């Protein structure tokens, strides 16, 4: 989608030396993204929040020792300078738990989003472009996927299969969640494939793979990107919910585990002592959702060249 033109005009045959400076300024995709982001402060806030969580996921566990230190003298300690969100039932710092727990949560979210979007887009594109028998078969499959109630199935699955890691968890959530995107991408494909420029591409002898991948797909890019971001939040809710309900083994640090322990062991709903322990992961989920929603706002402008320019 991008036409990146290098400053000397050497690598790209499109521009002569005379127009390069202007072309570089106008056509650099990432520059356009940056411009769109800067248009509203809320978008920058969203980027900052998501970047913070990304850093947390990548480097968080490196900041703390493998086993977080306990302090038997400070069980359920109130927030203080040393422990901004207090401590848990073992005297471990709650902030440290949130930070180290982010990797699991985010990895699951990312894996889910990737699988959901990849499967949904591929199936929707194929069904919409081919139509006919393939379309019918794939859409019945999609109906089934949409009709399966996700959470109850996950509960049942968790009794027979212990999800051992974030990626496995993401795989299962992803396989359950692609139906909606497939449906929507198919309808978009059906509408876009009748457009003049697709007919023209066919008439000019462009290969079918090119038409699907380079002509149809970019038209849906904002929608797909938006869904991908929203799928991340959906996956976070789903897995935190599962851990909160306690149907999965507590093998590692996770925001859902924290919520479960705060409510069922710490009695956070009745006593104020464990309240920070409950609120910290909730706040993290809230912030992550907020960051993503603020970024989603920019998607249409990023992918539409007409809105991307000044």
């Amino acid at each position, binding site marked *: *989608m991008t*036409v990146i033109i290098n400053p000397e005009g050497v690598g790209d*045959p*499109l*521009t*002569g030396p*005379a*127009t390069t400076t202007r*072309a570089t300024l*106008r*056509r650099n995709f990432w520059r356009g993204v940056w411009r769109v982001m800067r248009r509203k402060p809320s978008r920058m806030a969203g980027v900052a929040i998501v970047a913070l969580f990304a850093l947390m996921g990548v480097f968080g566990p490196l900041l703390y020792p493998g086993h977080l230190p306990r302090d038997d003298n400070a069980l359920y300690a109130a927030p203080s300078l040393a422990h901004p969100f207090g401590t848990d039932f073992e005297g471990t710092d709650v902030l440290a738990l949130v930070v180290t727990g982010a990797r699991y949560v985010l990895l699951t979210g990312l894996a889910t989003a990737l699988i959901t979007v990849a499967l949904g887009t591929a199936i929707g594109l194929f069904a919409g472009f081919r139509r006919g028998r393939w379309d019918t078969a794939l859409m019945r499959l999609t109906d089934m996927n949409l009709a399966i109630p996700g959470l109850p199935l996950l509960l049942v699955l968790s009794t027979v299969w212990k999800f051992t890691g974030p990626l496995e968890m993401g795989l299962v959530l992803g396989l359950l969640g692609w139906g909606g995107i497939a449906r929507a991408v198919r309808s978009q494909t059906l509408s876009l494939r009748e*457009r*003049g*420029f697709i*007919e*023209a*591409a*066919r*008439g*000019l*002898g*462009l*290969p079918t793979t*090119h038409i699907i991948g*380079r*002509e149809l797909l*970019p*038209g849906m890019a904002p929608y797909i990107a938006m869904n991908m971001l929203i799928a991340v939040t959906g996956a976070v809710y789903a897995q935190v919910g599962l851990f909160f309900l306690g149907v999965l083994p507590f093998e590692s640090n996770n925001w859902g585990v924290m919520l479960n322990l705060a409510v069922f062991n710490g009695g956070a709903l009745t006593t104020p002592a464990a309240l920070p322990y409950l609120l910290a992961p909730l706040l993290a989920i809230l912030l992550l959702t907020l960051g993503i929603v603020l970024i989603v706002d920019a998607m249409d402008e990023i*992918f*539409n*060249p*007409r809105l991307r320019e000044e």
Partner: protein
Amino acid sequence: MTPPPEVRIKDLTVVYRTPAGELPAVSRVDLTLSPGTITGVVGESGSGKSTLALSLLNAVQPPGRIAGGSVEIDGLGDVLRLGGESLRRTRGSRIGYVFQAAQNSLNPLKTIGGQLLDLGRSHEVDDLRGLVREAKDLLARMGMDGARVLDSYQHELSGGMRQRVGIMLALVLNAKVVVLDEPTTALDMITQATILRIVREIHEERGLTTLVITHDVGAVAEVADTLAVMYGGRVVEHGPVTDVLGSPEHPYTQGLIRAIPRLTGDISLARALPGRPPTLGTLPVGGCVFRERCERRMEVCETVEPARTDHDGRSVACHAAPLTPAKHKEFV
């Protein structure tokens, strides 16, 4: 320069699958495009013009189907027998096609240059720089700043510019057969005239064989050498453009010309053809397709489809026509 190829359409039938069975949109059409000429095809909406043009690319989309006949192009053979990769390569590089409403036939998300490079890569052009140079030349030839246009998105160009870009994309790979489907629809008069002049000039410069589909008799008079008149999926009259327009022999052609309002004189002299154009479903099965709107209808028209009769380099398919060639001297 290679000589312009000849295109021979023989006995071409294209049908559309409908709930009422397979109905012909193009019915046993014979049409030869002589090398180096511009052939115009006129007819009302639904007369099968666009379907005929798409058949030249073997690109009739379902529910349509080419049921029979052949489209032979010099150096290519029968296009209708091509399939898969060889057909794809033919499109664009051997047969250029400018689509109906070419204003909408550019990808809104890519620069023109990006689309040009896509086209080049799809046809394995090694010298992309040469391709860009060629494109810039063509654009300059059509009165535009090539560098600026290639660096633009379609929304940054006007309707006439997009139309010219469409023509550039159809020609840039050096196709020798060019099909223009309604090249001047939705453009203002001045742009129309410019586009037609460009088509004419480039046609001569590059030695092309060109087919222009339109419903605008005025446009076709300006640009074409020969004219084919289509009605109900059949070519009812075909011949040199001055002859066909100057002394039309088929009652439908006569009616079409009578329906054109004159620039000078009384507008009310223009008379619309009686009746309405047939759709696929209402097309008569036997006899002459035009008989219900025809003022010279005879008994034989009900049952026998008129055969094509040729004389003096023109042909007409009408039972009454050869007897009474009406003169329309007032038409320029």
